[in-house]
């Protein structure tokens, strides 16, 4: 009996470390739990962020193995764009954007993006060069 339970556990673990669908279900469970906790205790941060922090802590403390999550994370993150698309399509509800306001917003994005890229890179480069050489 004990052996049977042991074997079942081992098989479950084996599947968990290989199958990305199962691992994705784990992430869904953590997220749902995070949302429930956030709602229950009225914590102002999103449930997904709480779930992420809890998962990170559990991994850091070696309570759980990263092998149960690696493939699921890669699978979910690879398709994030697909999950975002339906939200982005809400622009069809905003016909008012086909106007001067829409143009201004696009121009603001197009000007802002290189500013952020260059600014951030320059600050980090200066920080890097100010470091003592042995720390690089």
């Amino acid at each position: 009996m004990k052996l049977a339970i042991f074997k079942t556990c081992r098989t479950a673990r084996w599947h968990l470390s290989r199958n990305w669908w199962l691992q994705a279900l784990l992430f869904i469970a953590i997220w749902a739990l995070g949302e429930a906790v956030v709602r229950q205790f009225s914590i102002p941060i999103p449930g997904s962020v709480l779930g992420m922090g809890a998962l990170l802590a559990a991994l850091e403390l070696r309570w759980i193995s990263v092998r149960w999550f690696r493939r699921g994370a890669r699978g979910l993150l690879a398709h994030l764009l697909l999950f975002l698309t339906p939200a982005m399509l809400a622009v069809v509800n905003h016909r008012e954007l086909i106007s001067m306001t829409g143009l201004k917003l696009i121009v603001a994005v197009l000007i802002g993006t290189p500013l952020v890229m260059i600014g951030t890179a320059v600050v980090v480069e200066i920080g890097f060069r100010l470091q003592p050489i042995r720390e690089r």
Partner: protein
Amino acid sequence: MNAELQAVLWAAVTLGIYLAALRLYRACRVWWLSPLLVTWVLCGVLIVVFHTAYRDYLRGTSWLVSLIGPTTVAFAIPIHENRALIRKYWVLLLIGTVAGSAISFGSAWALAWLFHLSPEMQASLLPRSITTPFAMTVSQDLGGLPELTAAFTAITGLFGAAIGEGVMSWLPLRSSFARGAFFGMGAHGAGVAKAREIGEEEGAVAGLIMVFAGLLNVLAVVLFVHLRG
């Protein structure tokens, strides 16, 4: 057509276009064939052509949107796997995250002021440089429209990834850190993919800066909203 059938059909159309676009992109690798852009534009055109209400489209595809939450949880794994890098270079990562977020908010605020944008549009524009799941949360907390923020964020990522290498060749960047921060802060997800093509360390740094900037902004805005009451 009955509503359930229509919902299933829209989900199938979205998935089908996405998978086809993914294959096409893997074969060609040009930025304007990015699956994000192709799926967005084609689905948008279909919705308009068939006079579908966005509400009806979302009925079939909202389950995709609810996977954004679990995917945010999954950001924990790249952080965990790069913990050695974080321990060694946490100062530089912190500098990049804070400075990048400040520049991104500052520039968006200034441009919104310059263009006389409404407060709602301004709030939707502010978080455009951080990765979309976090950007949508920040937008909501600031009183913006999260769906519009998702669209601005997508344009930022596409544009940043498209111009990135060209702009970078003009900058005297010696460290892989600055190159990683350049892409991770400026163009989030699309930028991280580009940074990975340049180098392993660039990709890792870009990914870390992207997630850290997202977290920093979400927590800062929560604090801001809380203090304001």
